[in-house]
C-alpha cells in the first residue's frame, strides 16, 4: 500500500481559510521560538561546555532589562494571538441569521439527521454548497461531539440542551464526520460523512426524499422492469394471439393446455416467469423467452409480481396506469428550470393519477381495463 503523508486537512468551508490563517500564524510562531531556543541551547552548550577556552569572566546572574523584554514581548505576542483566535471563534460561533436549519440527534452510536422537509438520514449529512447551514443538535443519551475536520468546526452534542454549529461549504465532495467525544463501546464507529452537493443536485436530492434517483414503490419498480425487459410487448391490456393479458390475473383460475388448472398465486406467477413452459395457458404456444437470473433478479421478480397484483386495483388507484410507459419514471431526471422547484416536475412523473390522461389516450384498452370492463 503506497503511503501518502498528507500535511493538512481539506479546506471545505468558508471558515477554513480564516481558521487556517490563525493556525499557520501560530505554527510560524512555534517554529520561530522553538528554533531560537534550540539554537541558543545548542550554541551555548557547545561554546561553554567544560574546558573550552572562552571568556567566562563577569558572569551575569540577573538582568532586569532582559527579564522584562522576555516577559513583555511574549505577553504582547500572546495578546495578539488571543485576539486573532478570539475573532475566528466569534465567527465560528455566530451563525448568520438566515441560515438553513438542519436537525441532528446524536445517540449511541449513530447520527440521525432530519431535514425540515422530512428527509431523514443516518450518519450521512447532505448539504448544499455555498449556503449557510446551521445544525441544531441534541443528544438522546450521553455526550457526543459533531466534528467535521474539513469545515474546521466542532461542538458537543449534549443531552438535555440544544447546541448548534454553522458552516458554509465551499467545495463539492465527501468529508469525514466524526463523533469526537468518547461515548462508549462503538465510539470510533460513530462516524460518517458530510456530502457537499451543488445546489441543484441538493434540491433534487431533497425533493426525491433523499434518494439520488426518484424513490419507487415496489409496484412502480416492477412496472419499470415490466417494460424494460419486454413483458409489455406481448402482455398487453387484452389477450392477444401471442400472449394472455395479465390484468387482474392474480387470484384467478388458470386453465392450461394439458387440461390442468391452478389458481394464479405468487408461486404460479413466479414459475411462469422463471420456467414459462411448465404450465402453458390453454390456447398459447411456447413463445415466451426464458429469463435468466442475470436478466431478472429475485428482487425484480418480486417487484413485477407486485406490479401485476396492482393491475386489478380500483380505477382511480395509481395502478390504473398499467402498461403505460410514459407513466413509469425514467432514470434520467428531466427538469425544466434552475430553481429548486424544478424538481417538482420530476415528482410529477412518478405514477399517479396525474398520469392517467396519457394512459387513456395512448392505450385505450387499458382505460377499459381500468374500468373493470374485461376479465382475462
Amino acid at each position: 500500500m503506497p503511503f501518502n503523508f498528507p500535511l493538512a486537512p481539506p479546506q471545505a468551508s468558508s471558515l477554513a481559510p480564516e481558521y487556517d490563517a490563525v493556525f499557520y500564524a501560530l505554527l510560524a510562531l512555534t517554529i520561530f521560538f522553538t528554533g531560537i531556543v534550540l539554537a541558543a541551547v545548542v550554541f551555548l552548550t557547545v561554546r561553554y561546555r567544560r574546558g573550552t577556552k572562552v571568556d567566562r569572566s563577569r558572569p551575569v546572574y540577573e538582568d532586569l532589562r532582559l527579564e522584562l523584554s522576555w516577559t513583555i514581548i511574549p505577553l504582547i505576542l500572546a495578546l495578539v494571538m488571543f485576539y486573532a483566535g478570539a475573532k475566528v471563534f466569534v465567527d465560528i460561533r455566530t451563525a448568520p441569521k438566515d441560515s438553513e436549519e438542519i436537525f441532528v440527534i446524536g445517540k449511541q452510536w449513530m447520527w440521525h439527521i432530519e431535514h425540515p422537509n422530512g428527509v431523514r438520514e443516518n450518519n450521512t449529512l447532505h448539504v448544499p454548497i455555498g449556503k449557510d447551514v446551521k445544525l441544531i443538535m441534541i443528544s438522546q443519551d450521553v455526550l457526543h461531539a459533531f466534528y467535521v475536520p474539513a469545515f474546521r468546526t466542532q461542538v458537543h452534542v449534549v443531552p438535555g440542551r440544544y447546541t448548534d454549529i454553522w458552516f458554509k461549504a465551499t467545495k463539492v465532495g465527501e468529508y469525514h464526520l466524526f463523533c469526537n467525544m468518547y461515548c462508549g463501546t462503538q465510539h470510533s464507529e460513530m462516524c460518517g460523512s458530510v456530502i457537499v452537493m451543488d445546489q441543484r443536485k441538493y434540491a433534487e436530492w431533497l425533493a426525491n426524499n433523499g434518494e439520488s434517483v426518484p424513490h419507487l414503490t415496489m409496484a412502480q419498480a416492477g412496472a419499470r422492469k415490466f417494460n424494460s425487459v419486454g413483458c409489455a410487448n406481448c402482455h398487453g391490456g387484452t389477450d392477444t394471439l401471442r400472449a394472455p393479458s395479465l390484468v387482474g390475473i392474480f387470484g384467478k383460475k388458470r386453465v392450461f393446455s394439458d387440461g390442468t388448472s391452478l389458481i394464479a398465486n405468487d408461486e404460479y406467477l413466479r414459475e411462469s416467469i422463471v420456467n414459462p413452459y411448465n404450465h402453458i395457458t390453454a390456447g398459447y404456444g411456447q413463445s415466451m423467452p426464458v429469463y435468466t437470473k442475470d436478466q431478472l433478479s429475485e428482487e425484480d421478480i418480486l417487484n413485477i409480481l407486485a406490479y401485476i397484483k396492482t393491475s386489478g386495483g380500483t380505477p382511480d388507484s395509481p395502478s390504473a396506469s398499467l402498461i403505460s410507459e410514459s407513466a413509469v419514471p425514467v432514470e434520467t431526471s428531466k427538469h425544466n428550470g434552475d430553481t429548486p422547484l424544478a424538481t417538482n416536475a420530476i415528482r410529477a412523473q412518478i405514477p399517479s393519477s396525474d398520469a392517467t390522461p396519457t394512459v387513456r389516450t395512448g392505450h385505450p384498452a387499458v382505460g377499459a381495463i381500468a374500468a373493470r370492463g374485461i376479465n382475462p
Partner: protein
Amino acid sequence: MSATSIGTSEFPKQGQEEVNYLNYDHTLRSWLTTGDHKRIAILYLISTTFIFFLGSLAAGMIRFELTSPAGVVLESETYNKVFSSHGVIMVFFFLVLALPATLGNFLLPLMIGARDLAFPRLNLGSWYLYMVGAALMLSGLIFGGIDTGWTFYTPYSSMYSNTQVSLVIIGIFFSGFSSITTGINFIVTTHKMRAPGMTWFRLPLFVWALYATSVIVILGTPVIAITLLLVVFERLFHLPIFSPELGGDPVLFQHLFWFYSHPAVYIMILPAFGIESELIANFARKRIFGYHFVAFSTIAIAGLGFLVWGHHMFVSSQSMYEGLVFSLISFLVAVPSAIKIFNWTATLYKGNIRLQSPMIYALGFIGLFTVGGLTGLFLGSVGTDVHLTATYFVVAHFHYVMVGGTMMAFLGGLHYWWPKMTGRMFNDGIAKWNAVLVFVGFNLTFFPQFIVGWLGMPRRYHYYYFAPEFQPYNIMSSLGASALALGFLLPAFYLTASLFNGPKAGSNPWGAHGLEWETSSPPPVTNFLETPIVTDEVYDFDPVSEYEQLRAAQDLLDEGGNPGGSY
C-alpha cells in the same frame, strides 16, 4: 552553597561501613513502619515505578492496536478499557504524585537542612493511603475494568457505563487524600523546619516548586474528590447531579472536573520545573539566571493555573464569552512558562557545562517542553481549539508536557540524585545514550500525532478504517513507542545493577551545591549529624575559578573520567 557544620569530625572514617538510613535495620517491618522520609520516598519509588510500567504496558497495547486501521487483536470494548486504564494509572497514580512523593519526599528535608518532614507518621500514612487507593483501582481494572477514559465525563460514567467505575473512583479518592497529606506536610515543613540561615530566597528552586505544587494540591484535590464521589452517588443512588434524565447538568461535571484537573497539570509539571532548575544550575556550574523571576513565575503559574479550567470546554456548550475569558487567561499563563525557558537557556551563558546524563535529560527537557508549551497556544487560542480539541493534536501536546517535560525531568532528577539515595554511581556512559534514546524515541512517537491530529484524527478511536490517510503517522508513532519503551526499561536495569556493582559515590559525586550534597551518601537516618547553618547564597558556583582550576589540572579534562572527581 556552603554550610558550616559543627562537629564534622564525628563522621565515620573512610572504609568503615557508615550507618545510614538504608542499612540501620534490614527487616521488612522496619520499612513498613518507618517514619523516615527517605525510606518512604523509596517505598513510593518502588510502588510508582511498578504502576508506571503497568500504565506503559497499556500504552504499548494502544500503540500496537493502532498500527492497523481496523485494529489488530482487541475488541473495541477491550481497547476502551485499555486506554482508560492507561489514563487513570498515569494521571492519578503516577504523574500527580511521582515527583513530589519520591524525589520531593527524599530531598525536601535534605535541601532545607531538616531532619525529616514535619509529620513523619502522616507521611507514612499517605503512602498507605496511596497503596489502598492503588489496590482498589487495580482490583477495579482487573475485575471488569473501566471504559470511561480518565476524564469520567458524565452522564456516560454515571448512568451508562457498565464497568467498575465506582471502585476505581474510590481508589482515586484514597490516592487523592494521599496527595493532600503530602502537600500539607511539605507546606508545614517548608515554613517551619528550614535550617538557620536558610531564608526563602536561599531555597533551591526545587523547594519553591514543591511548595507551589503543594498549595495547588491542597486547594484542588478536595474538589476532584467530591466531584468523583458525586458521580458514584449518582451511579449507585441516582442522586440527581449530572444526568439530565434525573434533572442534573452534565456540563457541571466538566467545570468541577477541570477546576482540579487543569491545575493538576501544574501539579505534574511544577516539580519538573524545579528539578530542571537544579540540573541546569548544577551542570552549567552557575547560579540559575534570574532566580527571583524563576521562583515567582512558579507562584504565578500556580495562581493563574486555577483560572483557566474553561479552556478544556471551549466546544462543550459553555457560552461564547466564557470561552473568550478563559482563552485570555490561558494566554497569560504562557508568559511565566516562557520566562522559565528563557532563564534556563540564559543560565548556560558563560557556564562551564558538564554533559553528564542528568544534563542530557535537562537539555532534552528544554526542547520538548518548549514544543509542548508552544503547541498549548493552539489549544488555549479559543478559535484554533475548536478544530483541534479532543484530536491527537491534544494527545501529542499533553504528552510533550507530561512525558517530554515531567518524565524527562523525573529521569534526569532520578539519575542526578541516585548516588545520594543509594550511595552508588551508575554507568554514566550508558545513561547518556539512554537519554538520547528517550529523546529520539519520544519525538518519533508523539510528533506524528501533531500532524494526524491536525488532519482530524479523534483521540480514543479504536478504528480509523474510514480514514486510511491516518495510518502512516500511526505506524511512525508506534515505531517510536518501541524505542521509547526501551528507553524507559533500560534505566530500570542499569540503575538496579549499580546497587550491586556500582562504585561508591561519595557525598558529592557531581561536585554540586546544595545542603543535600553536604551529608554522606546515602544520608544518615537523621540526615545531618549536626544542624547545618546556611551562610551563602543558593547555587553559589564560580565558573571562572572552576575553569582556571580545570585548566591547571589537565588530567581532568578527559570527559570519560570519574564524574565523582570534584575540584
